[in-house]
């Protein structure tokens, strides 16, 4: 996940060489040169601290274009990428500017991105009227596609009366709670649990989703919530859970509030070995650090599959690592971006086969959008994708990660989320344990 500049340079150089080599051969075999250029737009945070998210994802798109031989039916296929990071973190305004830019580029017929849900919320209203297809490799906020009462905005408002142009290849956050409930009840065998939330929209929402499924599974719970602004001591609450007979805790919240600080106080109460469960808001270095002496036993979900665990993805990842050789070129969303780009390439090909002219850019974008929306049973690296009417994928996979002690070599590789604060916690990292498929 971290960036090493040299690795990046090497990867881009390697890509350039491969691209030149492929460009000569061409896949259309017409021999009469290119009919013109078709581009896939990309909008991701690619600079500063956010580069570790965006660049490996961008490489996934590049890899898909490379695999297609850099052309479709005699048209040269390129990647038009834009960086939506400002000062090292994603920026919705910059994203809007980038999408406007991509729309004004007549070669761009579809785009992959954005990386962050907040950016997606700002970009959809710009891209929808232009009928520009967006496939996000990583947006997990359910509100972007689902009309839920807990959302403070709704998909119909974002589209502004236009047909849906937004799709994603990852599952949504609202499935994280249920996945962890099944994991807690069935896999860990926890029959009584304490559920804690930190009175935020995200925290209460994910805790409610957990609670509903856990109850359905047959578990009993005690629920409590705290205000992260005024709470500094959780021990009395935790003792309350102990009285109730709980043997684990689920926390709805994020580490930047205080979701993992209760964990740090559990050891003194003699309950430091209880499983401590939560959503992707606690799958962070900060959480491991806050957990102090009780990092072991913390588990978190993330929306999406871990490509490293899917056997069918292994050969693609091996090929990818040959083409992109930098230590940090492979990220959590590289394969999502690869699948997203391939779905668009397939849709572009279908449009060309149907006789659509990429030079009539508005018609062509609409044709691609329609084709993408009809994507059904697409066999990608991460599973089979069928888009529903909202733009969500049928492959609703949630992964569960647990904190375990890792050896120094595994920590040094840098692709695990480990503790940072020094001391012994630096060797504790989140490791993949299981996945749930809600689409099946």
């Amino acid at each position: 996940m971290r960036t090493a500049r040299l690795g990046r340079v090497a990867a881009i150089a390697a890509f350039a060489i491969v691209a030149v080599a492929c460009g000569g051969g061409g896949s259309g075999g017409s021999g009469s040169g290119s009919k013109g250029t078709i581009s896939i737009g990309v909008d991701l945070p690619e600079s500063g601290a956010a580069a570790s998210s965006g660049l490996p994802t961008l490489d996934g798109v590049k890899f898909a274009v490379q695999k297609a031989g850099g052309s479709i039916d005699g048209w040269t296929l390129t990647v038009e990428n834009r960086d939506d990071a400002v000062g090292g973190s994603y920026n919705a305004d910059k994203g809007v500017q980038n999408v406007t830019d991509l729309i004004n580029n007549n070669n761009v017929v579809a785009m992959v991105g954005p990386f962050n849900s907040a950016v997606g919320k700002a970009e959809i209203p710009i891209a929808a009227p232009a009928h520009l297809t967006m496939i996000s490799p990583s947006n997990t906020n359910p509100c972007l596609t689902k009309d839920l009462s807990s959302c403070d905005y709704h998909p119909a408002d974002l589209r502004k009366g236009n047909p849906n142009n937004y799709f994603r290849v990852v599952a949504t956050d609202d499935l994280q709670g249920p996945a962890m409930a099944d994991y807690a009840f069935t896999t860990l065998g926890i029959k009584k649990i304490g559920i804690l939330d930190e009175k935020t929209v995200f925290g209460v929402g994910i805790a409610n989703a957990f609670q509903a499924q856990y109850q359905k599974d047959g578990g009993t719970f005690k629920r409590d919530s705290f205000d992260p602004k005024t709470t500094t001591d959780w021990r009395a609450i935790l003792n309350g859970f102990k009285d109730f007979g709980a043997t684990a805790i689920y926390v709805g919240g994020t580490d930047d509030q205080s979701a993992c600080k209760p964990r740090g106080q559990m050891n003194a109460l003699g309950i430091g070995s209880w499983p401590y469960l939560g959503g992707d808001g606690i799958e962070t270095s900060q959480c491991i650090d806050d957990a102090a002496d009780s990092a072991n036993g913390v588990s978190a979900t993330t929306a999406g599959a871990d490509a490293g665990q899917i056997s069918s993805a292994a050969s693609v990842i091996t090929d990818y690592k040959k083409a992109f050789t930098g230590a940090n070129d492979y990220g959590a969303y590289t394969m999502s971006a690869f699948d997203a780009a391939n779905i668009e390439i397939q849709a572009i090909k279908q449009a060309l086969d149907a006789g659509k002219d990429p030079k009539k850019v508005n018609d062509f974008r609409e044709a691609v959008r329609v084709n993408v929306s009809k994507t059904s049973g697409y066999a990608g690296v991460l599973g089979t994708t069928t888009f529903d009417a909202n733009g969500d994928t049928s492959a609703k996979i949630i992964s569960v990660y647990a904190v375990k002690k890792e050896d120094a070599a595994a920590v040094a590789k840098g692709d695990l989320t480990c503790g940072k604060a020094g001391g012994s916690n630096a060797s504790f990292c989140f490791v993949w344990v299981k996945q749930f498929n809600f689409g099946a």
Partner: protein
Amino acid sequence: MQRLRATFAGDLGTALFSTLGLLAVGWVVILAIQSPRSLIATMVIGITDGAIYALIALGYTMVYGIIELINFAHGDVFTLGGFIALPLFAAFGIGPGAHYSLVFIPILLLVFVLVMLINGLVNITIERVAYRPLRGAPRLAPLITAIGMAFILEGTMYLWRGPVNLRFPDLISEARYTNSLIDIGVKDVMVVVVAIFLVVMLSLFINRTKLGKAMRATAQDRDAAQLMGIDINRTISATFFIGAALAGAGGLVYALYFNSIRFDLGFSAGLVAFTAAVLGGIGNIEGAALGGLLIGIIRALVDRYISASWSDVIIFAILIIVLVFRPTGLLGMRVPEK
């Protein structure tokens, strides 16, 4: 029975007050009968938290008592204590992952003294820069500069160490004494002992020394005190110094106790401590200590036996009831006479 009748013979306020108090005591007695061990554990949590609140509340109450300023920056001065301690520990080779060892005790004591000293000097500077020039200004002006100082301190600590929860070295023994009834840790004892020691020292200082007398005189009537030859500026500076030293000790105790500190801790802790000072009677040293303890205990009881969702609601409801019937707080306020 006679006492009960006498209680209800009073005015409505006293009656309501006593009824609520009796109900609360009754509830605690029931809890004690149900599970004494669980109640004691909760009281230990409440008393330790309350002791930390009390150490912060003392600074609020002293400053308000002497110049009628709600020093909003005080909560952040408390956090600063923990922040200053980190590089001091590092200078002695104690990193964030360090664990308890006897050899650390003298270093710990030295760091305590240094933190209190540095914190006091910082607060004197704050008073000199942001409050003293406004002593004759309308009330609102120093109130706003105090809020400003709070943000400046928070912002500085944020720039210094970032938004993360800082891991604090674990320098106090994790040893616990446990039997069928009691389960208490060395850490719990440390918090209470430090708090009691500092409050007693403060009380002795204020009641037995010349400077303490000057403080009391300044709090009662600044002009008259000045006419008696008391150096007002020096007295007020001393008040800020002592308040900040206590808060610094509080910040260090907090960080040693919970092994974690964050730049914005002062906002929440300061708010609760200020509430404690008002509850006990602002300007009143014993009141601040009592208020801190009460809030700590109430919070722990509600967290455990009712629901943490209700903690703030219940604490502030009690505050409102107390203030409605006893506007000067539980032990009465002591502020400058007009």
